[in-house]
């Protein structure tokens, strides 16, 4: 089975992500009443060490959330420490943030973004994927040697909130088996 991405497929995935991001941003914008800027989605096939490198960024908090359905995988979110308080205020959290409420905020934010991104994406491809509860995690403890997979399809998008310095990245990673399911759907959509 060939899991490699052609130009046409990459273009399609990028556009699909674009659309689901738009929906995610709209959800968040409605909730916090602030304008959100989106990046152009990055679609790439990554190896375990590239994956670990992708997550090791200073000044970010990380959450993860798995999804199950006709496609399986995990959504990882990176959220900047900078501007966190501003978001908390927009989301009506009590300031100053305690460690507990900050964690609660991060999980809520990542759940909203991941949920909207993934559901928009799955819906367009007539796939199903139900997200489980997100949890906070520390990518420092990740080691590429522990992974049993060789490649994952990563779809990375970035949200910035214009009024604050807050920056959030959502990375949807598909399990190897799910990539072919996705590509099949994509090909039929492109016919």
């Amino acid at each position, binding site marked *: 089975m060939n899991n490699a991405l052609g130009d*046409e497929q990459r*273009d399609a995935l990028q556009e699909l992500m*674009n*659309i689901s991001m*738009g929906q995610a941003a709209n959800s968040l914008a409605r909730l916090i009443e602030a304008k959100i800027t989106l990046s152009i989605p990055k679609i790439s096939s990554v190896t375990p060490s590239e994956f670990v490198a992708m997550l090791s960024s200073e000044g970010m908090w990380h959450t993860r959330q798995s999804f199950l359905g006709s496609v399986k995988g995990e959504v990882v979110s990176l959220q900047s420490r900078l501007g966190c308080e501003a978001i908390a205020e927009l989301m009506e959290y009590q300031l100053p943030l305690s460690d507990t409420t900050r964690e609660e905020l991060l999980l809520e934010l990542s759940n909203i973004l991941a949920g909207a991104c993934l559901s928009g994406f799955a819906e367009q491809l007539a796939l199903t994927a139900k997200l489980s509860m997100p949890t906070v995690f520390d990518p420092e403890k990740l080691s590429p040697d522990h992974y049993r997979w060789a490649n994952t399809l990563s779809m990375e998008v970035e949200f910035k909130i214009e009024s604050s310095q807050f920056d959030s990245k959502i990375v949807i990673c598909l399990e190897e088996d799910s990539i072919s399911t996705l590509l099949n759907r994509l090909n039929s959509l*492109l016919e």
Partner: protein
Amino acid sequence: MPIPVTIADDSMMSRKAVRRALPADWDIEITEATNGKEALAAVEAGKAEVLFLDLTMPELDGFGVLRYLHEHHAKTIVIVISADIQPEAKKLVDSLGAFRFLHKPLNAEQLSQVLFDVGLI
């Protein structure tokens, strides 16, 4: 005589999606543009009586195209089809004189309705 229509979107899939959503019996001649500059060139060449316009594009984005048309070619009927569906984007698009603001993924029925409303079909 067929109506000149231009579809401006950097994504091939989205251009295809617009083509597919257009009514089959509508007599048109389609030009495709992959960025804002190409879209404006098509307008200048008289190939865009109707312009389906994406907002996020390289070279010149949809807002830039709207701004230019707003000043120079008020006659072009622009239908924005956007992935960015935040209220702010719609407000800006409206103020720049677009006829309609449609969300991606494009819904064929909705598109037909819009074309009907505008009096194109």
